[in-house]
């Protein structure tokens, strides 16, 4: 039976293997390859041979330094932006969604209603709702300034009719982080709720007999038993935050924002933003070098997270 099935199985797999070979496996190798080509012309497929210059130009000030260089764009703008987004949004969104999931798990009435509401951001379009947030955060007419009594504070774009940019970088980062967390809650709540429902009731009965207070039970029983789900969301949201792009486009438009230079980076361009911008400029080799760099960062951090968690995650 085994040998008879062999060729048949490959026939069933053929469409997938062909498509993956062309659109997944080949591109991965090709991206590495192109990142080492000098003056690559992607329409003709020609280049001036191998070089490390793409990496040196994108990642170091060795070949070219000063404002407007790719080193500035990546290492002084895109990478710090991406890192800050990750550091702020990943822990906050995990903590908030964990609290909401624990809250949802402890109630009976209205549970379904709340669950549906909290899932809504997941099914919406990152770009469309980003545009809604840009209206909410508008300096002149935004509801955010009205509610929090911060009239004319510029969050993501200068007030209407004001010359030059008056947007504080940190205000923009706040608005963006707020939006990213808002948009990333549903998925995590869903994962945590699934995990909570699988926890054996015995643990809670044991805690009750020991007369452990509720917060202590949550901290010492629920959280450790949820550690596989926490690790999973940590890794996926970390990767997601490192690839943040749509939220920036939705909130700041396709220019990526324009901020007061004295307060931080002058735009909210992220690593992925830089990559797509280079494709638009026909500088594919730089896009490839940046993509390989991003890939390596994500891989290193993922491996570290797995290593650290090995001791702390209970399966």
């Amino acid at each position, binding site marked *: *039976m*085994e040998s008879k*099935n*062999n060729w048949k199985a490959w026939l*069933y*797999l053929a*469409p*997938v293997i062909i*498509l*993956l070979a062309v*659109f*997944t496996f080949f*591109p*991965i190798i090709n*991206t590495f390859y*192109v990142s080492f080509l000098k003056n690559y012309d992607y*329409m003709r497929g020609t280049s001036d041979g191998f070089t490390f210059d793409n990496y040196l130009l994108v990642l170091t000030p060795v070949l070219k330094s000063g404002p407007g260089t790719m080193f500035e764009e990546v290492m002084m703008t895109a990478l710090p932006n991406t890192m800050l987004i990750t550091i702020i949004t990943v822990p906050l969104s995990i903590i908030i969604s964990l609290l*909401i999931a624990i*809250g*949802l798990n*402890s*109630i009976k009435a209205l549970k379904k209603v709340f669950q*549906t*509401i909290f*899932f*809504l*951001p*997941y*099914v*919406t*379009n*990152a*770009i*469309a709702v980003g545009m*809604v*947030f840009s*209206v*909410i955060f508008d300096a002149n*007419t935004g509801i955010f300034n*009205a509610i929090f009594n911060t*009239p004319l504070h510029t969050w993501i774009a200068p007030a*209407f009719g004001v010359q030059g940019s008056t947007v504080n970088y940190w205000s923009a980062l706040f608005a963006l982080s707020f939006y990213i967390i808002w948009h990333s*809650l549903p*998925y995590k709540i*869903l*994962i945590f709720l699934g*995990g909570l429902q699988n926890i054996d009731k015995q643990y809670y009965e044991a805690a009750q007999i020991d007369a452990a207070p509720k917060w202590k039970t949550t901290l010492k029983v629920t959280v450790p038993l949820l550690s596989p789900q926490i690790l*999973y969301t940590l890794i996926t949201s970390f990767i997601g935050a490192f*690839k943040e792009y*749509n939220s920036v*486009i939705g909130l700041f*438009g396709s220019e990526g924002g324009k901020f007061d230079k004295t307060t931080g980076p002058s735009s909210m361009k992220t690593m992925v933003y830089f*990559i*797509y911008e280079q*494709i638009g400029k026909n500088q*594919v080799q730089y896009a490839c070098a940046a*993509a390989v760099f*991003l*890939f390596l960062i*994500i891989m290193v951090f993922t491996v570290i997270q797995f290593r650290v968690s090995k001791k702390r995650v209970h399966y």
Partner: protein
Amino acid sequence: MEDGYRDLQLVLRGSSRSVKSKEISSKVWKIIGLIVVYALLAFAALIVIFPFYWMIITSLKSGEEINRLVPTFFPEVIRWSNYSDAMAKLDFGTLLRNTLIVGIFSTLGTLITSILAAFAFSKLNFKGRDMMFSIFLGTMMIPGEMMVISNYISVSRLGLTSSGLTGIYIANIIPFMVSVFYIYLLRQNFKQIPDALYLAAKVDGKGDWTFLWKVMVPLAAPTLITILILKLMGAWNSYVWPNLVAQNQKEYYMMTNGLRNSFNVASDIDQYGVQMAATVVVTVPLLLVFIFFRKYIMKGVGRAGIKG
């Protein structure tokens, strides 16, 4: 048993209160706790819902009303014309046509390739099956940007971005006719179908092909519906790839990049109403699909988090 447990409590030394008062106070604390939980959940739900509410009411306001320093929480004069303006500005018909064509074909393609691959991985024995599956799953760890650049080079060099609408459709459909995640999802489902059924069909002289389409596929219908919905929503929401291949030509836009590119310039505030009407038009179909297919969507999305 119950009585013995209570007696045990009574014996506890140093406790100045009786069991009864302790029970009452623990009940009071439980109610207070529940109120706090509901209050916090309601507050969080309010923050989640608010942008949707704001989107809808802003879409119905006039420019003058949006422009006021003290925002109104309900439009004084409802301006429906924002919607007709938004539809015209979006060129909604074109966006819908492009999105549906791309969405339907890439979804059909994904369903077919996933069914075939999931069948091979779940019911057929062949050399290298587990290794192949691991390699497939491994590709999910690699950031999509690594593939997007090269794929863009490929479709450009094939001339798909410069040969009219058909080329654009092909460029938007073919790379998205396969999804490792959906193969994984479907394989899990196929595995639950007992092997005895498969062997019985063999005894009856039914081939693999008939068995797959007559037995497996109908049994896996819920998962297939989940894939169908998530995939169609994916086409509706996709921005990066359609935007790359369209190369700023309006007639090639799909729903989401069409929306963003229609309102990209820092337009005057009068346009906010029209802009929000456009986002409502793009968002509401998604919400409707969610309301009708809530179970399928949440099941499919939640599946990813279960280990193993």
